[in-house]
C-alpha cells in the first residue's frame, strides 16, 4: 500500500528537519488528500534512529511503516569471526541499555551446548546484575518518555538513580555501561564488599525514589491525558503480533519468562508479575513502575541470601586459571596460553536460550560446528518484534500521540537493527 502511495506522488517538499511531506493524491475522510510524512531517522522523539513513513489524513495517522537499518552494525556476522569468549563483548552492544541480559542469553545458550551449570553464587550475581539493569533501563525509558510528553524534570530524577547504578557497574566490573560481566561459565569477578554495601544502600533508597517519580507523573493531569486511552493494544493483538515484555503485560497478559521458564534460579525469588488491563500507554507506564518495585524486591532477596562459594565453573578449558596459580603451576600457564590464543571449543549442536529483559524476550540462538568460533549467532531481540504493533497502536491517533506511542514501546534501535 505504501508503494501505491509512492507512485501516486505528485509533489514533495521539506517542512523541517527530518520531516518530508509528499502528496499522495489519495482522498481522506475529511475531504483533503492523504499526506505522506517522513519522520526521522534524525529526530529527537524517535528514541534513536528510527524512521517512520506515516500517511496522514488531516492530523490522524492512517498508515505507519517503520524503516529500520540505520543502526545496522553487523553484530551477528561479526560474532562469527570472533572466538566464543570474545563474542560476549559484542553482545553487550546490541541492546545497549541492557548489556547483562544480552550477555546472559548468550552465556545460557553456550552453557547449554557445553553442558555446564554455574555455581549458585554466580547465578545470584547474574540475577543482581540483571535486575539492576532492568531498573536502569526503565529509568532511561521513564526519563526520555517524560521529556517527550513535556515532563522534562523526569530526566534529572531518573538519571540521578541511573548514575548510582552505573557506579555500581563500575565497582563490580570496571565499566559503566558495557560490563561484559556475565560470560559462559560464570561471571567476570566476585562482588567486592563495597559493591554489596552500595547495593544495600540502593535497595533501601530506591522505593522512596520510585515514589518520587510517581508523585511527578502518576496523577499528573497532563501526563494522564497524553497517555490514557492512547495507543491501545488489545491482548489478542499483542499476542498475535508477538509483543513481549511490558508491551504484552501492559495489555493484561501475565507472561514473564522469569516465571514461565525460570533461569538462573529465578524460581527461588518471591516477586509478582506486573500487569495492567488498561492496554494503553498509561498501562505500560504502570507496568514498568511496578516492575522497578519488584526488581528492588528481588535485589533485596538476592543480597540477603547471597550464597558463598566460587563464581565460576572449575573448568580450565573454558575459563582462565586464577592469577596466583600462574606463578606456581606450569599447567596453569599452558591453559592460560591456550585459552587466550585459540579459545575453547564448543560441542557440535545448536541451542536457544531466552531471558526476560527490560523490553521483553531477549533470546540468543547459537550454532556450533565444534570449532573455536560460533557458526552462527542469532539474537531474538525484543525491540524488533515490539515494533510490529506500532501501526496497530498508532492507527487513527494524532501525530503528537504517535510520539507517546513510540515512547511507550521502548524500542532500542541498536536492538532492532543489531
Amino acid at each position, binding site marked *: 500500500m505504501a508503494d501505491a502511495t509512492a507512485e501516486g506522488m505528485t509533489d514533495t517538499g521539506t517542512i523541517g528537519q527530518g520531516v518530508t511531506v509528499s502528496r499522495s493524491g489519495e482522498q481522506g475522510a475529511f475531504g483533503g488528500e492523504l499526506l505522506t510524512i517522513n519522520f526521522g531517522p534524525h529526530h529527537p522523539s524517535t528514541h*534513536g534512529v528510527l524512521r517512520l513513513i506515516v500517511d496522514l489524513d488531516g492530523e490522524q495517522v492512517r498508515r505507519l511503516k517503520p524503516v529500520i537499518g540505520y543502526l545496522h552494525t*553487523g553484530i551477528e556476522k561479526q560474532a562469527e569471526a570472533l572466538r566464543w569468549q570474545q563474542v560476549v563483548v*559484542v553482545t553487550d*552492544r546490541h541492546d545497549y541499555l541492557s548489556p547483562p541480559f544480552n550477555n546472559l542469553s548468550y552465556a545460557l545458550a553456550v552453557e547449554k551446548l557445553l553442558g555446564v551449570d554455574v555455581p549458585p553464587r554466580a547465578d545470584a550475581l547474574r540475577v543482581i546484575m540483571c535486575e539492576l539493569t532492568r531498573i536502569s533501563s526503565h529509568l532511561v525509558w521513564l526519563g526520555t518518555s517524560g521529556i517527550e510528553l513535556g515532563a522534562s524534570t523526569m530526566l534529572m530524577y531518573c*538519571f540521578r538513580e541511573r548514575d548510582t547504578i552505573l557506579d555500581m557497574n563500575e565497582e563490580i566490573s570496571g565499566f559503566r555501561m558495557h560490563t561484559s560481566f556475565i560470560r559462559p561459565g560464570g561471571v567476570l569477578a566476585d562482588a567486592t564488599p563495597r559493591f554489596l554495601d552500595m547495593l544495600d544502600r540502593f535497595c533501601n533508597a530506591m522505593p522512596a525514589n520510585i515514589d518520587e517519580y510517581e508523585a511527578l507523573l502518576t496523577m499528573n493531569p497532563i501526563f494522564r491525558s497524553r497517555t490514557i486511552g492512547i495507543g491501545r493494544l488489545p491482548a489478542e493483538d499483542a499476542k498475535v503480533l508477538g509483543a513481549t515484555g511490558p508491551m504484552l503485560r501492559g495489555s493484561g497478559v501475565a507472561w514473564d519468562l522469569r516465571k514461565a521458564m525460570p533461569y538462573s534460579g529465578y524460581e527461588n525469588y518471591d516477586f509478582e508479575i506486573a500487569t495492567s488491563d488498561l492496554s494503553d500507554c498509561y498501562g505500560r507506564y504502570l507496568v514498568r513502575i511496578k516492575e522497578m518495585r519488584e526488581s528492588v524486591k528481588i535485589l533485596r532477596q538476592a543480597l540477603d541470601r547471597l550464597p558463598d562459594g566460587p563464581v565460576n565453573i572449575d573448568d580450565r578449558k573454558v575459563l582462565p586459571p586464577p592469577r596466583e596459580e600462574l606463578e606456581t603451576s606450569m599447567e596453569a600457564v599452558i591453559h592460560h596460553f591456550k585459552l587466550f590464543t585459540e579459545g575453547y571449543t564448543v560441542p557440535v549442536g545448536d541451542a536457544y536460550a531466552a531471558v526476560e529483559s527490560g523490553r521483553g524476550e531477549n533470546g540468543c540462538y547459537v550454532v556450533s560446528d565444534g570449532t573455536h568460533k560460533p557458526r552462527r549467532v542469532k539474537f531474538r531481540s525484543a525491540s524488533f518484534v515490539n515494533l510490529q504493533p506500532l501501526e496497530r497502536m498508532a492507527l487513527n491517533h494524532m501525530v503528537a500521540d504517535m510520539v507517546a506511542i513510540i515512547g511507550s514501546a521502548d524500542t532500542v534501535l541498536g536492538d532492532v537493527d543489531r
Partner: protein
Amino acid sequence: MGVEALAESLGQNVLTTTLGKLIGWGRGNSVWPLQFGLACCAIEMIHTATAGVDIARFGSEAMRASPRQADMMIVSGRVSQKMAPILRTIYDQMPEPKWVISMGACASTGGVFNNYALLQGVDKIVPVDVYIPGCPPRPEDLLNALMILQERIKAQGITPRQ
C-alpha cells in the same frame, strides 16, 4: 583630553581586547551541540546533560535537534553505511562556523566492529575536531573534549576555518 587622561578617567571599568578574542570568547562559551544520538554513546551524552555532570556549566546544555541552530555536532555512536549520507546531509545543513566531536571508539574508528556494516570512522565523511576514546566514553570524557574544543575555538578568533 589626552589619551592618558581618558584611560585614567575610565580606570578599571573598561577592558580592551581584540575583536577576534572577543568573538572567540563568545563562541567558545556558548557552543550549542547538535544531538546526533546514534547508539550507546548517546546515553552517556544524556548523562552529561543531566544534573550529575551538568554540561550547562560550560554553556553547552542547549542540545539542538535542528542542525540550523547548532554549532557543534557530537557524533555519539556507531555510524552505519546507511546512516552516513544522512549524517553528511545534516552536517552540511549546519551554519558555519561548525565543529565536530567524534564520541567513542565506533564513531572514531569503527571500534570493535570491523565489518561491512559500519563506517570505519566518521572522519571519512566529515572533518573531526576532537576524538574521544572509550566504548562508551565517560561523561567526564565528553566534558574534557568540550573543554579542549573551547580552547581551540577561543584561539581561532574570527575565522575558524581558513
